């Protein structure tokens, strides 16, 4: 294969891998926004906690001598449950008491929770980078030629993300729970009048978003190999950018926005300079806000922050 083509494909695959994580995270923002018109700024911290829980349980699995698949499943499962519990409690503690408060109030508690959770992990764990156990070592190698531009772990992350996105699509569009979520997004009072327990559905949405964040966190941490307490912040901001890029409130838009943002970053880093990688992500945000504030697939402007 031509070297230039292989380089280009390599950049695309690493961009899509990174974009997968943004997509999973952006869905958490967008699902909550769709229902509550609230940006959950502590979402990045739930991701970070998911990564730490994955690390702890993957380490535990290694000590217990679990096989690579069982170990990955343990880390992933524990992170999902743990992060889901954090999402549930977060909503109860920081947002539910403020359901009828002015819009600024939950925004402030969101930022407060974000800072609190980060400092909490720094105090309880460490502020240093810690090595994440390699969960992808046992993956079979790819056929001849593929290895020039894509890693097995990248393909695994991409395929897992697509599978999760498909599952989420089925849940939102074709299940009773999804129907209830969509009805609350439009008119929560009417939803209550039809017998829907709105608080329960809101809790479910937070748990779901947190679980998606945990999946992304464990996958990408195993790929990168190290985590610290600050990883949630930058990923959170980028995923928020992805959600805005796609049109906040729209799950399809969030997935698309995540992949587009990952590709943009990767292409900018690969062909211009990796120093400007983050700069390009936010340049995209500024351009979208200037020229297409409703996002790629969004239809109406968000009225609340």
């Amino acid at each position, binding site marked *: 294969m031509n070297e230039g083509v292989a380089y280009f494909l390599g950049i695309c695959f690493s961009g899509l891998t990174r974009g997968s994580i943004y997509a999973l995270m952006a869905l958490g923002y967008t699902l909550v926004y769709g229902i509550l018109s609230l940006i959950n700024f502590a979402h990045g911290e739930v991701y970070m906690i998911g990564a730490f829980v994955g690390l702890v349980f993957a380490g535990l699995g290694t000590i217990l001598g679990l096989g690579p698949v069982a170990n990955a499943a343990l880390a992933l499962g524990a992170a999902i449950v743990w992060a889901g519990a954090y999402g549930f409690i977060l909503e109860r503690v920081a947002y539910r008491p403020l359901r009828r408060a002015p819009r600024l109030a939950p925004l402030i508690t969101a930022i407060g929770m974000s800072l609190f959770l980060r400092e909490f992990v720094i105090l309880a764990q460490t502020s240093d980078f810690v090595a994440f156990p390699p969960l992808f070592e046992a993956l079979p190698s790819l056929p001849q030629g593929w290895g020039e531009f894509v890693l097995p772990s990248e393909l695994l992350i991409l395929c897992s993300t697509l599978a999760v996105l498909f599952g989420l699509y089925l849940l939102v569009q074709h299940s009773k729970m999804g*129907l209830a979520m969509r009805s609350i997004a*439009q008119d929560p009072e009417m939803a209550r009048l039809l*017998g829907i327990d709105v608080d329960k559905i809101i809790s479910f949405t937070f748990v779901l978003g947190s679980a998606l964040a945990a999946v992304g966190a464990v996958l990408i941490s195993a790929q990168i190999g190290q985590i610290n307490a600050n990883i949630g912040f930058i990923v959170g901001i980028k995923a928020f950018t992805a959600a805005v890029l796609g049109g906040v409130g729209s799950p399809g838009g969030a997935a698309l926005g995540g992949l587009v943002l990952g590709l943009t970053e990767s292409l900018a880093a690969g062909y211009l300079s990796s120093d400007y990688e983050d700069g390009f992500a936010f340049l995209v945000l500024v351009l979208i806000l200037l020229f297409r504030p409703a996002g790629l697939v969004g239809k109406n402007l968000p009225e609340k922050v």
Partner: protein
Amino acid sequence: MLELVGVKSGYGPIEALKGIDLQVGEGEIVALIGANGAGKSTCLKTIVGLLRPTAGQVRFCGQDTLGLKPQQLVAQGMSLVPEGRRIFGDLTVGENLGLGAYLTASRAQVQLDLAYVFDLFPILQERQKQRAGTLSGGQQQMLALGRALMGRPKFLLLDEPSLGLAPLIIKEIFAMIQRINREQKTTILLVEQNAHLALKTAQRAYVLESGVLTLQGLAKELLGNKEVQAAYLGLV
């Protein structure tokens, strides 16, 4: 079925209902008429649990409803078709009806209820896959009624079902309201600004003025009442 005893209710410091007593018996259609701002919608919101009465008691099937949430009252057989219809415009007609059956566990039951709603309003079956927001006003009102019926309510509360609709459509919808009452034995509390229409449809009626019930009686008698004629029927 429903009994209000000295109910006061409102929004914060504003008292929209100043102590009202009202009964709706099983199988009845009772109309609540009154001018704009008389407290009719407040009364309905208080009954379904969206507002808490500040004094007095709301009893549904003999039980005090204080502290029950709307979804619990729906589970007990209450269903409100709110003013302005409040259909979910971005969802399809079928999805809107599906939401009405949210608390119905049995799929077979849902199919039966759906068949009944489609029998009442055949247009909804034709438009099943269409976005509800694209329906005409009359069709949206039919959808709102159909959605409420999907929950098999014992007690149906209708808030201004004639609002903004053409006379022919109103006639059709009110005929269906009477048919639902007759066939399903559904008790109905009908809130209307269109007093003539409401009194023609209901068996009994209450007149609400500035948060106080000023008149009550058989609908036929109220139609002939001089005060009602002057104030609400445009006859002098």
